[in-house]
Protein backbone atom coordinates (compact mmCIF):
# COMPACT_ATOMS: atom_id res chain seq x y z
CA UNK A 1 0.00 0.00 0.00
CA UNK A 2 1.21 3.50 -0.79
CA UNK A 3 0.02 6.40 1.34
CA UNK A 4 0.82 10.06 0.72
CA UNK A 5 0.53 12.46 3.65
CA UNK A 6 0.37 16.18 2.83
CA UNK A 7 1.83 18.41 5.48
CA UNK A 8 2.49 22.11 5.85
CA UNK A 9 5.18 23.94 7.76
CA UNK A 10 3.57 26.73 9.75
CA UNK A 11 4.78 29.35 12.22
CA UNK A 12 3.93 28.37 15.80
CA UNK A 13 0.83 30.52 16.15
CA UNK A 14 1.15 30.80 19.91
CA UNK A 15 4.29 32.85 19.36
CA UNK A 16 3.19 35.04 16.46
CA UNK A 17 3.57 38.77 16.89
CA UNK A 18 2.25 41.40 14.56
CA UNK A 19 4.28 44.52 13.85
CA UNK A 20 2.23 47.35 15.37
CA UNK A 21 2.91 49.80 12.53
CA UNK A 22 3.20 47.76 9.37
CA UNK A 23 0.71 45.05 10.38
CA UNK A 24 2.92 42.35 9.04
CA UNK A 25 3.75 39.06 10.68
CA UNK A 26 7.06 39.24 12.52
CA UNK A 27 8.54 35.87 11.64
CA UNK A 28 11.94 36.45 13.18
CA UNK A 29 12.50 34.05 16.01
CA UNK A 30 9.10 32.40 15.61
CA UNK A 31 9.72 28.67 15.43
CA UNK A 32 8.34 26.81 12.43
CA UNK A 33 6.52 23.59 13.20
CA UNK A 34 4.66 20.86 11.34
CA UNK A 35 1.04 21.98 11.28
CA UNK A 36 -0.26 20.22 14.43
CA UNK A 37 -3.39 18.91 12.67
CA UNK A 38 -1.21 17.18 10.06
CA UNK A 39 0.42 15.03 12.74
CA UNK A 40 -2.88 13.23 13.30
CA UNK A 41 -2.90 12.44 9.58
CA UNK A 42 0.71 11.23 9.69
CA UNK A 43 0.12 9.04 12.75
CA UNK A 44 -2.95 7.43 11.17
CA UNK A 45 -0.98 6.74 7.98
CA UNK A 46 1.88 5.22 9.97
CA UNK A 47 -0.58 2.97 11.84
CA UNK A 48 -1.94 1.69 8.53
CA UNK A 49 1.62 1.08 7.35
CA UNK A 50 2.34 -0.84 10.58
CA UNK A 51 -0.72 -3.01 9.97
CA UNK A 52 -0.66 -3.52 6.22
CA UNK A 53 2.93 -2.77 5.27
CA UNK A 54 3.78 -0.49 2.36
CA UNK A 55 5.10 3.04 2.16
CA UNK A 56 4.25 6.44 3.59
CA UNK A 57 5.45 9.34 1.46
CA UNK A 58 5.25 12.78 3.07
CA UNK A 59 4.65 15.69 0.73
CA UNK A 60 5.06 19.37 1.47
CA UNK A 61 4.86 22.52 -0.61
CA UNK A 62 6.77 25.44 0.81
CA UNK A 63 10.05 27.33 1.04
CA UNK A 64 13.35 25.39 1.19
CA UNK A 65 13.35 25.60 5.02
CA UNK A 66 10.26 23.37 5.08
CA UNK A 67 12.78 20.56 4.68
CA UNK A 68 13.02 20.56 8.50
CA UNK A 69 9.37 19.60 8.85
CA UNK A 70 9.75 16.76 6.37
CA UNK A 71 12.77 15.42 8.29
CA UNK A 72 10.66 15.54 11.43
CA UNK A 73 8.09 13.32 9.68
CA UNK A 74 10.83 10.89 8.60
CA UNK A 75 11.94 10.69 12.23
CA UNK A 76 8.42 9.56 13.17
CA UNK A 77 8.71 6.74 10.66
CA UNK A 78 7.66 8.01 7.22
CA UNK A 79 9.32 6.13 4.35
CA UNK A 80 9.97 8.95 1.93
CA UNK A 81 9.67 12.73 1.68
CA UNK A 82 9.19 15.16 -1.18
CA UNK A 83 9.47 18.93 -0.90
CA UNK A 84 7.85 20.85 -3.71
CA UNK A 85 9.57 24.20 -3.72
CA UNK A 86 9.69 26.87 -6.39
CA UNK A 87 9.35 30.65 -6.42
CA UNK A 88 6.60 30.15 -9.01
CA UNK A 89 4.35 28.73 -6.25
CA UNK A 90 4.55 31.87 -4.10
CA UNK A 91 1.29 33.58 -3.26
CA UNK A 92 -0.82 30.51 -3.96
CA UNK A 93 -4.32 30.43 -2.50
CA UNK A 94 -6.10 27.15 -1.79
CA UNK A 95 -7.11 26.56 -5.41
CA UNK A 96 -3.56 27.03 -6.72
CA UNK A 97 -2.14 25.01 -3.80
CA UNK A 98 -4.39 22.05 -4.49
CA UNK A 99 -3.43 22.18 -8.17
CA UNK A 100 0.29 22.00 -7.36
CA UNK A 101 -0.08 19.29 -4.72
CA UNK A 102 -2.34 17.22 -6.97
CA UNK A 103 0.28 17.39 -9.74
CA UNK A 104 2.99 16.27 -7.31
CA UNK A 105 0.86 13.38 -6.03
CA UNK A 106 0.24 12.28 -9.62
CA UNK A 107 4.00 12.33 -10.15
CA UNK A 108 4.64 10.39 -6.93
CA UNK A 109 2.01 7.90 -8.12
CA UNK A 110 4.06 7.18 -11.24
CA UNK A 111 6.67 5.51 -9.02
CA UNK A 112 4.09 3.50 -7.11
CA UNK A 113 0.30 3.91 -7.39
CA UNK A 114 -1.15 5.91 -4.50
CA UNK A 115 -3.97 4.23 -2.57
CA UNK A 116 -4.66 6.81 0.10
CA UNK A 117 -3.91 10.50 0.58
CA UNK A 118 -4.07 12.03 4.06
CA UNK A 119 -4.21 15.67 5.09
CA UNK A 120 -4.86 17.32 8.43
CA UNK A 121 -8.28 18.81 9.10
CA UNK A 122 -6.94 22.28 8.38
CA UNK A 123 -3.80 24.35 9.00
CA UNK A 124 -3.36 26.59 12.01
CA UNK A 125 -2.21 29.57 9.94
CA UNK A 126 -4.73 29.55 7.10
CA UNK A 127 -7.50 27.58 8.84
CA UNK A 128 -9.32 27.04 5.54
CA UNK A 129 -9.76 23.23 5.42
CA UNK A 130 -10.10 23.60 1.63
CA UNK A 131 -6.91 22.11 0.22
CA UNK A 132 -7.83 18.51 1.03
CA UNK A 133 -11.19 18.63 -0.78
CA UNK A 134 -9.46 20.45 -3.65
CA UNK A 135 -6.82 17.74 -4.10
CA UNK A 136 -9.48 15.00 -3.94
CA UNK A 137 -11.54 16.73 -6.64
CA UNK A 138 -8.55 17.18 -8.95
CA UNK A 139 -7.37 13.58 -8.58
CA UNK A 140 -10.81 12.00 -8.54
CA UNK A 141 -10.23 10.53 -5.08
CA UNK A 142 -13.19 9.61 -2.89
CA UNK A 143 -13.26 12.40 -0.32
CA UNK A 144 -13.69 11.72 3.39
CA UNK A 145 -13.34 14.86 5.54
CA UNK A 146 -13.25 15.16 9.34
CA UNK A 147 -12.56 11.45 9.81
CA UNK A 148 -12.48 10.55 13.49
CA UNK A 149 -11.82 6.82 13.08
CA UNK A 150 -10.87 4.35 10.38
CA UNK A 151 -13.22 1.48 11.10
CA UNK A 152 -12.16 -0.99 8.43
CA UNK A 153 -9.81 -1.25 5.50
CA UNK A 154 -9.76 -4.28 3.24
CA UNK A 155 -6.97 -4.16 0.71
CA UNK A 156 -8.35 -7.10 -1.29
CA UNK A 157 -11.76 -5.56 -1.96
CA UNK A 158 -10.28 -2.03 -1.62
CA UNK A 159 -13.15 -1.12 0.64
CA UNK A 160 -12.71 1.51 3.34
CA UNK A 161 -15.09 2.24 6.18
CA UNK A 162 -14.73 5.34 8.36
CA UNK A 163 -16.50 7.47 10.91
CA UNK A 164 -16.87 11.07 9.84
CA UNK A 165 -17.66 13.87 12.27
CA UNK A 166 -20.84 15.75 11.37
CA UNK A 167 -23.12 18.15 13.25
CA UNK A 168 -24.63 16.29 16.18
CA UNK A 169 -23.14 12.92 15.42
CA UNK A 170 -20.91 10.83 13.20
CA UNK A 171 -21.61 9.42 9.76
CA UNK A 172 -20.51 5.85 9.14
CA UNK A 173 -19.33 5.96 5.53
CA UNK A 174 -18.08 3.26 3.22
CA UNK A 175 -16.07 4.03 0.13
CA UNK A 176 -13.42 2.59 -2.17
CA UNK A 177 -9.72 3.28 -2.58
CA UNK A 178 -8.17 5.48 -3.81
CA UNK A 179 -9.47 7.95 -1.30
CA UNK A 180 -8.47 11.18 0.44
CA UNK A 181 -8.95 11.47 4.18
CA UNK A 182 -8.74 14.65 6.22
CA UNK A 183 -8.07 13.52 9.76
CA UNK A 184 -9.77 15.05 12.78
CA UNK A 185 -7.66 16.21 15.72
CA UNK A 186 -7.60 14.01 18.80
CA UNK A 187 -8.26 10.88 16.75
CA UNK A 188 -4.93 9.37 17.74
CA UNK A 189 -1.77 10.21 19.61
CA UNK A 190 1.51 10.83 17.84
CA UNK A 191 4.14 8.20 18.57
CA UNK A 192 7.60 8.98 19.88
CA UNK A 193 10.34 9.01 17.28
CA UNK A 194 12.61 5.98 17.48
CA UNK A 195 16.34 6.54 17.72
CA UNK A 196 17.11 4.77 14.43
CA UNK A 197 14.45 6.83 12.64
CA UNK A 198 15.87 10.02 14.13
CA UNK A 199 19.29 9.11 12.82
CA UNK A 200 17.81 8.19 9.44
CA UNK A 201 15.96 11.55 9.32
CA UNK A 202 19.17 13.52 9.75
CA UNK A 203 20.83 12.09 6.68
CA UNK A 204 17.73 11.23 4.67
CA UNK A 205 18.14 12.21 0.99
CA UNK A 206 14.79 13.93 0.67
CA UNK A 207 13.82 15.06 -2.76
CA UNK A 208 13.30 18.69 -3.70
CA UNK A 209 11.13 19.24 -6.72
CA UNK A 210 10.74 22.44 -8.66
CA UNK A 211 7.65 23.08 -10.76
CA UNK A 212 8.95 20.98 -13.66
CA UNK A 213 9.91 18.04 -11.45
CA UNK A 214 6.45 18.20 -9.88
CA UNK A 215 4.89 17.83 -13.31
CA UNK A 216 3.16 21.21 -13.40
CA UNK A 217 1.61 21.53 -16.83
CA UNK A 218 -0.26 24.81 -16.69
CA UNK A 219 1.78 27.67 -15.23
CA UNK A 220 -1.32 29.84 -15.17
CA UNK A 221 -2.74 27.59 -12.47
CA UNK A 222 -0.02 27.96 -9.84
CA UNK A 223 1.16 30.73 -7.56
CA UNK A 224 -0.34 34.18 -7.61
CA UNK A 225 -1.51 33.76 -11.20
CA UNK A 226 -3.46 30.63 -10.42
CA UNK A 227 -5.16 32.14 -7.38
CA UNK A 228 -8.63 33.57 -7.95
CA UNK A 229 -8.66 35.20 -4.53
CA UNK A 230 -6.90 38.51 -4.06
CA UNK A 231 -5.87 39.86 -0.67
CA UNK A 232 -7.04 43.44 -0.79
CA UNK A 233 -6.25 44.44 2.77
CA UNK A 234 -4.39 43.12 5.81
CA UNK A 235 -4.99 44.79 9.15
CA UNK A 236 -4.82 44.24 12.90
CA UNK A 237 -7.91 43.71 15.03
CA UNK A 238 -9.46 47.02 16.09
CA UNK A 239 -9.49 47.65 19.81
CA UNK A 240 -12.90 48.34 21.29
CA UNK A 241 -13.72 52.05 21.45
CA UNK A 242 -15.05 51.94 25.00
CA UNK A 243 -12.78 51.16 27.90
CA UNK A 244 -13.95 48.51 30.31
CA UNK A 245 -15.46 49.62 33.58
CA UNK A 246 -12.73 48.47 36.00
CA UNK A 247 -12.73 47.41 39.63
CA UNK A 248 -9.67 46.37 41.60
CA UNK A 249 -10.10 43.75 44.34
CA UNK A 250 -7.08 45.03 46.27
CA UNK A 251 -8.81 48.40 46.68
CA UNK A 252 -11.87 46.82 48.28
CA UNK A 253 -12.77 43.15 48.83
CA UNK A 254 -13.90 40.24 46.67
CA UNK A 255 -17.41 40.43 48.13
CA UNK A 256 -17.86 44.15 47.54
CA UNK A 257 -16.48 43.88 44.03
CA UNK A 258 -18.86 41.00 43.31
CA UNK A 259 -21.91 42.84 44.69
CA UNK A 260 -20.95 45.90 42.68
CA UNK A 261 -20.58 43.92 39.51
CA UNK A 262 -23.93 42.15 39.83
CA UNK A 263 -25.58 45.50 40.46
CA UNK A 264 -23.88 47.13 37.44
CA UNK A 265 -24.56 44.30 34.99
CA UNK A 266 -28.21 43.96 35.97
CA UNK A 267 -28.84 47.72 36.04
CA UNK A 268 -27.36 48.31 32.61
CA UNK A 269 -28.87 45.13 31.17
CA UNK A 270 -32.14 44.41 32.98
CA UNK A 271 -33.10 41.93 30.25
CA UNK A 272 -30.24 39.65 31.31
CA UNK A 273 -31.60 39.53 34.85
CA UNK A 274 -35.16 39.04 33.58
CA UNK A 275 -34.00 36.19 31.34
CA UNK A 276 -32.15 34.49 34.18
CA UNK A 277 -35.07 34.82 36.56
CA UNK A 278 -37.46 33.45 33.97
CA UNK A 279 -35.27 30.48 33.15
CA UNK A 280 -34.39 29.64 36.74
CA UNK A 281 -38.04 29.90 37.84
CA UNK A 282 -39.18 27.53 35.13
Amino acid at each position, binding site marked *: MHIVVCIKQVPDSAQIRVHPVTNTIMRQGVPAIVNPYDLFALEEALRLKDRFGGRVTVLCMGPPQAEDSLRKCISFGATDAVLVTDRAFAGADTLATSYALAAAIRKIGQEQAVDLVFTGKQTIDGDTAQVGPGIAKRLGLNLLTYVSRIVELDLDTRRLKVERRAEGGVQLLETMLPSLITMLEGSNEMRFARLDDMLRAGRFPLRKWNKDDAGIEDLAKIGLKGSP*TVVSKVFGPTPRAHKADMQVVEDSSPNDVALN*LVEKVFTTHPQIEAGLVERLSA
Partner: protein
Amino acid sequence: MSDTPKPAAPRAAGRAGRNTELPEHLKSYKGVWVFVEHDRGHVNPVSWELMGEARKLADKLQVGVAGVILGGPDEPLDSYAREAYAYGADRCYLMRDAVLKGYRNEPFTKGLTDLVNTHQPEIMLLGASAMGRDLAGSVATTLGTGLTADCTELNIDGRALAATRPTFGGSLLCTIMTLAYRPQMATVRPRVMQLPLRDDSRSGDVVEQGLGMVETEIVTKLLEFIPDATRNTINLPFADVIISGGKGLKNADNFKLVWDLARVLGAEVGATRAVVQAGWAEAERQVGQTGKTVRPKLYIAAGISGAIQHRVGMEGSDVIVAINTDANAPIFDIAHHGIVGNAMQVLPALTQAFSNRLARHIRKVA
Protein backbone atom coordinates in the same frame (compact mmCIF):
# COMPACT_ATOMS: atom_id res chain seq x y z
CA MET B 1 -8.53 31.73 0.20
CA SER B 2 -4.92 32.66 0.64
CA ASP B 3 -3.08 30.89 3.40
CA THR B 4 -0.40 33.49 3.58
CA PRO B 5 -1.18 37.16 3.72
CA LYS B 6 0.52 38.94 0.88
CA PRO B 7 1.74 42.50 1.39
CA ALA B 8 -1.12 44.89 1.83
CA ALA B 9 -2.15 46.65 -1.36
CA PRO B 10 -5.14 48.93 -1.74
CA ARG B 11 -6.09 47.24 -5.01
CA ALA B 12 -4.42 44.30 -6.58
CA ALA B 13 -4.97 45.63 -10.08
CA GLY B 14 -1.87 45.93 -12.17
CA ARG B 15 0.17 43.44 -10.18
CA ALA B 16 2.26 41.18 -12.30
CA GLY B 17 0.42 38.28 -13.79
CA ARG B 18 -2.85 38.93 -12.05
CA ASN B 19 -6.11 39.07 -13.80
CA THR B 20 -8.31 41.33 -11.77
CA GLU B 21 -10.80 42.25 -14.49
CA LEU B 22 -14.07 40.38 -14.65
CA PRO B 23 -14.36 38.78 -18.10
CA GLU B 24 -17.42 39.77 -20.15
CA HIS B 25 -19.09 36.35 -20.01
CA LEU B 26 -19.12 36.38 -16.20
CA LYS B 27 -20.80 39.77 -15.92
CA SER B 28 -24.24 38.21 -16.33
CA TYR B 29 -23.81 36.30 -13.02
CA LYS B 30 -26.40 37.86 -10.68
CA GLY B 31 -27.82 37.29 -7.23
CA VAL B 32 -26.70 36.09 -3.83
CA TRP B 33 -27.18 32.44 -2.88
CA VAL B 34 -27.18 30.67 0.44
CA PHE B 35 -26.69 26.92 0.67
CA VAL B 36 -29.37 25.79 3.14
CA GLU B 37 -27.76 23.07 5.21
CA HIS B 38 -30.11 20.56 6.82
CA ASP B 39 -29.84 17.14 8.35
CA ARG B 40 -32.34 14.78 9.93
CA GLY B 41 -35.23 17.21 9.89
CA HIS B 42 -33.51 20.40 10.96
CA VAL B 43 -31.93 23.32 9.16
CA ASN B 44 -28.61 24.34 10.66
CA PRO B 45 -29.24 27.86 12.06
CA VAL B 46 -26.03 29.08 10.37
CA SER B 47 -27.96 28.98 7.08
CA TRP B 48 -30.47 31.51 8.40
CA GLU B 49 -27.71 33.66 9.86
CA LEU B 50 -26.24 33.70 6.34
CA MET B 51 -29.63 34.46 4.83
CA GLY B 52 -29.65 37.69 6.85
CA GLU B 53 -26.19 38.59 5.53
CA ALA B 54 -27.17 37.62 1.98
CA ARG B 55 -30.16 39.96 2.20
CA LYS B 56 -27.91 42.89 3.18
CA LEU B 57 -25.42 42.14 0.39
CA ALA B 58 -28.17 41.68 -2.18
CA ASP B 59 -29.87 44.93 -1.21
CA LYS B 60 -26.58 46.78 -1.73
CA LEU B 61 -26.21 45.11 -5.14
CA GLN B 62 -29.92 45.47 -5.91
CA VAL B 63 -30.28 41.80 -6.75
CA GLY B 64 -32.25 38.86 -5.35
CA VAL B 65 -31.47 36.33 -2.64
CA ALA B 66 -31.92 32.62 -3.21
CA GLY B 67 -31.78 29.61 -0.92
CA VAL B 68 -30.43 26.35 -2.34
CA ILE B 69 -32.00 23.25 -0.83
CA LEU B 70 -30.88 19.75 -1.75
CA GLY B 71 -32.42 16.69 -0.15
CA GLY B 72 -34.38 13.49 -0.36
CA PRO B 73 -37.98 13.24 -1.69
CA ASP B 74 -39.29 12.38 1.78
CA GLU B 75 -37.61 15.32 3.50
CA PRO B 76 -39.63 18.51 4.22
CA LEU B 77 -37.79 20.65 1.67
CA ASP B 78 -40.87 22.82 0.99
CA SER B 79 -41.14 23.77 4.61
CA TYR B 80 -37.41 24.67 4.61
CA ALA B 81 -38.13 26.85 1.57
CA ARG B 82 -40.90 28.66 3.47
CA GLU B 83 -38.46 29.27 6.30
CA ALA B 84 -35.92 30.55 3.79
CA TYR B 85 -38.40 33.17 2.55
CA ALA B 86 -39.19 34.16 6.14
CA TYR B 87 -35.50 34.81 6.74
CA GLY B 88 -35.03 36.87 3.56
CA ALA B 89 -34.90 34.69 0.44
CA ASP B 90 -36.80 35.71 -2.70
CA ARG B 91 -36.46 32.34 -4.37
CA CYS B 92 -35.46 28.76 -3.61
CA TYR B 93 -33.71 26.31 -5.89
CA LEU B 94 -34.80 22.81 -4.96
CA MET B 95 -33.24 19.53 -5.89
CA ARG B 96 -35.07 16.43 -4.69
CA ASP B 97 -33.51 13.05 -5.23
CA ALA B 98 -33.24 9.89 -3.19
CA VAL B 99 -29.43 10.03 -3.46
CA LEU B 100 -29.48 13.44 -1.74
CA LYS B 101 -30.86 12.06 1.50
CA GLY B 102 -28.12 12.44 4.11
CA TYR B 103 -25.10 14.51 3.14
CA ARG B 104 -22.49 12.98 0.86
CA ASN B 105 -19.85 14.95 -1.00
CA GLU B 106 -20.26 13.46 -4.45
CA PRO B 107 -23.97 14.01 -5.21
CA PHE B 108 -24.09 17.34 -3.37
CA THR B 109 -21.06 18.63 -5.28
CA LYS B 110 -22.66 17.71 -8.59
CA GLY B 111 -26.03 19.16 -7.58
CA LEU B 112 -24.70 22.50 -6.36
CA THR B 113 -22.23 22.82 -9.27
CA ASP B 114 -24.99 22.15 -11.81
CA LEU B 115 -27.29 24.72 -10.20
CA VAL B 116 -24.53 27.34 -10.21
CA ASN B 117 -23.71 26.68 -13.85
CA THR B 118 -27.37 26.87 -14.87
CA HIS B 119 -28.53 29.87 -12.85
CA GLN B 120 -25.25 31.76 -12.42
CA PRO B 121 -25.21 33.53 -9.05
CA GLU B 122 -22.52 36.13 -8.35
CA ILE B 123 -22.13 35.22 -4.66
CA MET B 124 -22.51 31.84 -2.95
CA LEU B 125 -22.44 31.57 0.85
CA LEU B 126 -22.15 28.40 2.94
CA GLY B 127 -21.80 27.71 6.66
CA ALA B 128 -18.25 26.88 7.78
CA SER B 129 -19.55 23.62 9.22
CA ALA B 130 -18.42 20.04 8.61
CA MET B 131 -20.89 19.94 5.71
CA GLY B 132 -20.34 23.44 4.33
CA ARG B 133 -16.55 23.27 4.31
CA ASP B 134 -16.55 19.80 2.74
CA LEU B 135 -18.90 20.94 0.01
CA ALA B 136 -17.48 24.43 -0.59
CA GLY B 137 -13.94 23.16 -1.25
CA SER B 138 -15.15 20.61 -3.78
CA VAL B 139 -17.53 22.97 -5.57
CA ALA B 140 -15.03 25.84 -5.77
CA THR B 141 -12.37 23.49 -7.19
CA THR B 142 -14.83 22.12 -9.76
CA LEU B 143 -15.86 25.63 -10.80
CA GLY B 144 -12.27 26.94 -10.60
CA THR B 145 -13.38 29.96 -8.62
CA GLY B 146 -12.25 31.74 -5.46
CA LEU B 147 -13.35 30.64 -2.01
CA THR B 148 -12.74 32.55 1.20
CA ALA B 149 -13.10 30.36 4.26
CA ASP B 150 -14.29 31.22 7.75
CA CYS B 151 -15.26 34.82 7.15
CA THR B 152 -16.23 37.05 10.04
CA GLU B 153 -17.45 39.98 7.99
CA LEU B 154 -18.96 40.32 4.52
CA ASN B 155 -19.30 43.52 2.58
CA ILE B 156 -19.62 44.90 -0.93
CA ASP B 157 -16.73 46.89 -2.41
CA GLY B 158 -17.53 48.25 -5.84
CA ARG B 159 -19.62 45.33 -7.13
CA ALA B 160 -17.50 42.62 -5.57
CA LEU B 161 -17.70 40.71 -2.33
CA ALA B 162 -15.17 41.87 0.26
CA ALA B 163 -14.81 38.96 2.67
CA THR B 164 -12.87 39.56 5.89
CA ARG B 165 -11.43 36.68 7.86
CA PRO B 166 -8.96 36.17 10.67
CA THR B 167 -5.65 34.62 9.71
CA PHE B 168 -2.62 33.37 11.63
CA GLY B 169 -4.87 32.23 14.44
CA GLY B 170 -6.61 35.59 14.52
CA SER B 171 -3.51 37.76 14.96
CA LEU B 172 -4.38 39.51 11.72
CA LEU B 173 -7.45 40.14 9.62
CA CYS B 174 -7.47 39.89 5.83
CA THR B 175 -10.00 41.22 3.40
CA ILE B 176 -10.14 38.95 0.39
CA MET B 177 -11.82 39.43 -2.97
CA THR B 178 -12.45 37.29 -6.00
CA LEU B 179 -12.33 39.80 -8.85
CA ALA B 180 -12.05 37.86 -12.09
CA TYR B 181 -14.09 34.72 -11.31
CA ARG B 182 -17.71 33.94 -10.49
CA PRO B 183 -19.38 33.01 -8.29
CA GLN B 184 -17.52 34.52 -5.36
CA MET B 185 -17.71 31.87 -2.68
CA ALA B 186 -17.39 32.26 1.07
CA THR B 187 -17.98 30.19 4.19
CA VAL B 188 -18.93 31.77 7.52
CA ARG B 189 -18.72 30.17 10.95
CA PRO B 190 -21.88 29.52 12.94
CA ARG B 191 -22.87 32.28 15.38
CA VAL B 192 -20.58 34.90 13.84
CA MET B 193 -23.53 36.61 12.12
CA GLN B 194 -26.72 37.54 13.86
CA LEU B 195 -29.90 35.57 13.21
CA PRO B 196 -32.22 37.91 11.23
CA LEU B 197 -35.78 38.57 12.35
CA ARG B 198 -38.18 36.04 10.92
CA ASP B 199 -41.07 37.36 8.84
CA ASP B 200 -43.52 34.58 8.03
CA SER B 201 -45.55 36.85 5.74
CA ARG B 202 -42.71 36.85 3.20
CA SER B 203 -42.94 34.41 0.30
CA GLY B 204 -41.06 33.61 -2.86
CA ASP B 205 -40.88 31.34 -5.88
CA VAL B 206 -39.45 27.90 -6.35
CA VAL B 207 -37.27 26.57 -9.14
CA GLU B 208 -36.92 22.79 -9.16
CA GLN B 209 -34.16 21.01 -11.02
CA GLY B 210 -33.26 17.33 -11.30
CA LEU B 211 -29.91 15.92 -10.23
CA GLY B 212 -29.52 13.29 -12.94
CA MET B 213 -27.53 10.82 -10.89
CA VAL B 214 -28.32 7.27 -9.82
CA GLU B 215 -27.17 5.52 -6.65
CA THR B 216 -24.99 3.04 -8.52
CA GLU B 217 -22.83 5.92 -9.85
CA ILE B 218 -21.98 7.05 -6.32
CA VAL B 219 -19.04 5.27 -4.75
CA THR B 220 -19.42 6.44 -1.16
CA LYS B 221 -22.31 4.97 0.83
CA LEU B 222 -23.79 6.42 4.01
CA LEU B 223 -24.28 3.33 6.15
CA GLU B 224 -25.47 4.90 9.35
CA PHE B 225 -25.71 8.10 11.35
CA ILE B 226 -24.70 7.70 14.98
CA PRO B 227 -26.02 10.64 17.02
CA ASP B 228 -23.83 11.93 19.83
CA ALA B 229 -24.84 10.68 23.24
CA THR B 230 -24.09 14.11 24.64
CA ARG B 231 -25.89 15.94 21.87
CA ASN B 232 -27.92 18.27 24.05
CA THR B 233 -25.78 18.41 27.12
CA ILE B 234 -23.21 20.88 25.81
CA ASN B 235 -24.75 23.59 23.72
CA LEU B 236 -22.17 26.32 23.92
CA PRO B 237 -22.94 28.21 20.69
CA PHE B 238 -26.53 28.87 21.74
CA ALA B 239 -26.10 29.43 25.47
CA ASP B 240 -27.41 32.72 26.90
CA VAL B 241 -24.82 32.83 29.65
CA ILE B 242 -21.34 31.32 29.55
CA ILE B 243 -18.77 31.18 32.34
CA SER B 244 -15.32 30.39 30.94
CA GLY B 245 -12.14 29.58 32.73
CA GLY B 246 -8.51 29.87 31.67
CA LYS B 247 -5.08 28.76 32.81
CA GLY B 248 -5.14 31.52 35.43
CA LEU B 249 -7.19 29.16 37.58
CA LYS B 250 -3.99 27.18 38.11
CA ASN B 251 -5.47 23.66 38.44
CA ALA B 252 -8.42 21.39 37.71
CA ASP B 253 -9.70 21.73 41.25
CA ASN B 254 -9.98 25.51 41.01
CA PHE B 255 -11.72 25.11 37.65
CA LYS B 256 -14.67 23.71 39.64
CA LEU B 257 -15.31 27.28 40.85
CA VAL B 258 -16.37 28.05 37.27
CA TRP B 259 -18.90 25.24 37.50
CA ASP B 260 -20.22 26.57 40.82
CA LEU B 261 -21.02 29.96 39.31
CA ALA B 262 -22.44 28.37 36.16
CA ARG B 263 -24.81 26.24 38.23
CA VAL B 264 -26.21 29.29 40.03
CA LEU B 265 -26.82 31.06 36.72
CA GLY B 266 -27.99 28.03 34.76
CA ALA B 267 -25.06 28.83 32.46
CA GLU B 268 -22.84 26.76 30.21
CA VAL B 269 -19.15 26.32 31.00
CA GLY B 270 -16.54 27.34 28.45
CA ALA B 271 -12.77 26.99 28.41
CA THR B 272 -9.64 28.15 26.65
CA ARG B 273 -7.53 25.88 24.48
CA ALA B 274 -4.89 25.58 27.22
CA VAL B 275 -7.50 24.39 29.70
CA VAL B 276 -8.82 21.79 27.27
CA GLN B 277 -5.29 20.63 26.53
CA ALA B 278 -4.64 20.32 30.25
CA GLY B 279 -7.71 18.09 30.49
CA TRP B 280 -9.67 20.30 32.93
CA ALA B 281 -12.59 20.54 30.49
CA GLU B 282 -13.94 18.63 27.49
CA ALA B 283 -12.90 19.64 23.98
CA GLU B 284 -16.53 20.58 23.18
CA ARG B 285 -16.20 23.42 25.69
CA GLN B 286 -13.33 25.17 23.92
CA VAL B 287 -14.16 28.72 22.88
CA GLY B 288 -12.08 30.38 20.18
CA GLN B 289 -10.40 30.07 16.83
CA THR B 290 -10.05 26.30 16.92
CA GLY B 291 -13.09 25.80 19.14
CA LYS B 292 -16.60 27.21 19.19
CA THR B 293 -17.76 30.71 18.35
CA VAL B 294 -20.24 31.92 20.92
CA ARG B 295 -22.39 35.03 21.33
CA PRO B 296 -24.18 34.80 24.67
CA LYS B 297 -25.91 37.69 26.41
CA LEU B 298 -23.40 37.42 29.25
CA TYR B 299 -19.85 36.02 29.06
CA ILE B 300 -17.75 35.83 32.19
CA ALA B 301 -14.05 35.11 31.57
CA ALA B 302 -12.18 33.98 34.67
CA GLY B 303 -8.40 33.71 34.62
CA ILE B 304 -8.31 34.20 30.86
CA SER B 305 -5.65 36.57 29.55
CA GLY B 306 -7.47 37.10 26.27
CA ALA B 307 -5.18 35.76 23.57
CA ILE B 308 -6.58 36.70 20.19
CA GLN B 309 -7.29 33.01 19.47
CA HIS B 310 -9.77 33.05 22.34
CA ARG B 311 -11.16 36.52 21.66
CA VAL B 312 -12.26 35.79 18.11
CA GLY B 313 -14.55 33.12 19.52
CA MET B 314 -16.36 35.28 22.09
CA GLU B 315 -16.06 38.99 21.24
CA GLY B 316 -19.58 38.96 19.78
CA SER B 317 -21.01 38.46 23.29
CA ASP B 318 -23.41 41.20 24.46
CA VAL B 319 -21.79 41.77 27.86
CA ILE B 320 -18.28 40.59 28.67
CA VAL B 321 -17.02 40.42 32.26
CA ALA B 322 -13.33 39.67 32.73
CA ILE B 323 -11.52 38.65 35.90
CA ASN B 324 -7.73 38.65 35.81
CA THR B 325 -4.85 39.39 38.15
CA ASP B 326 -2.99 41.31 35.44
CA ALA B 327 -4.50 44.76 34.91
CA ASN B 328 -2.84 44.88 31.48
CA ALA B 329 -4.26 41.57 30.23
CA PRO B 330 -5.64 41.98 26.69
CA ILE B 331 -9.00 40.53 27.79
CA PHE B 332 -9.72 43.92 29.41
CA ASP B 333 -9.48 45.56 25.97
CA ILE B 334 -12.68 43.86 24.92
CA ALA B 335 -14.41 43.48 28.30
CA HIS B 336 -17.27 45.74 29.36
CA HIS B 337 -16.65 45.09 33.04
CA GLY B 338 -13.21 44.26 34.35
CA ILE B 339 -12.20 42.95 37.75
CA VAL B 340 -8.50 43.04 38.59
CA GLY B 341 -8.06 40.29 41.09
CA ASN B 342 -7.59 36.63 41.76
CA ALA B 343 -10.33 34.60 40.06
CA MET B 344 -10.09 31.99 42.81
CA GLN B 345 -11.36 34.62 45.26
CA VAL B 346 -13.67 36.52 42.93
CA LEU B 347 -15.55 33.51 41.52
CA PRO B 348 -16.93 32.31 44.89
CA ALA B 349 -17.85 35.90 45.77
CA LEU B 350 -19.70 36.25 42.45
CA THR B 351 -21.45 32.93 42.97
CA GLN B 352 -22.69 34.18 46.33
CA ALA B 353 -23.70 37.62 45.04
CA PHE B 354 -25.58 36.28 42.00
CA SER B 355 -27.19 33.58 44.08
CA ASN B 356 -28.50 36.06 46.70
CA ARG B 357 -29.75 38.48 44.10
CA LEU B 358 -31.56 35.88 42.01
CA ALA B 359 -33.00 34.04 45.02
CA ARG B 360 -34.76 37.26 45.98
CA HIS B 361 -36.45 37.51 42.58
CA ILE B 362 -37.29 33.88 42.22
CA ARG B 363 -38.97 33.88 45.59
CA LYS B 364 -40.96 36.93 44.48
CA VAL B 365 -42.02 35.23 41.26
CA ALA B 366 -42.99 32.06 43.10
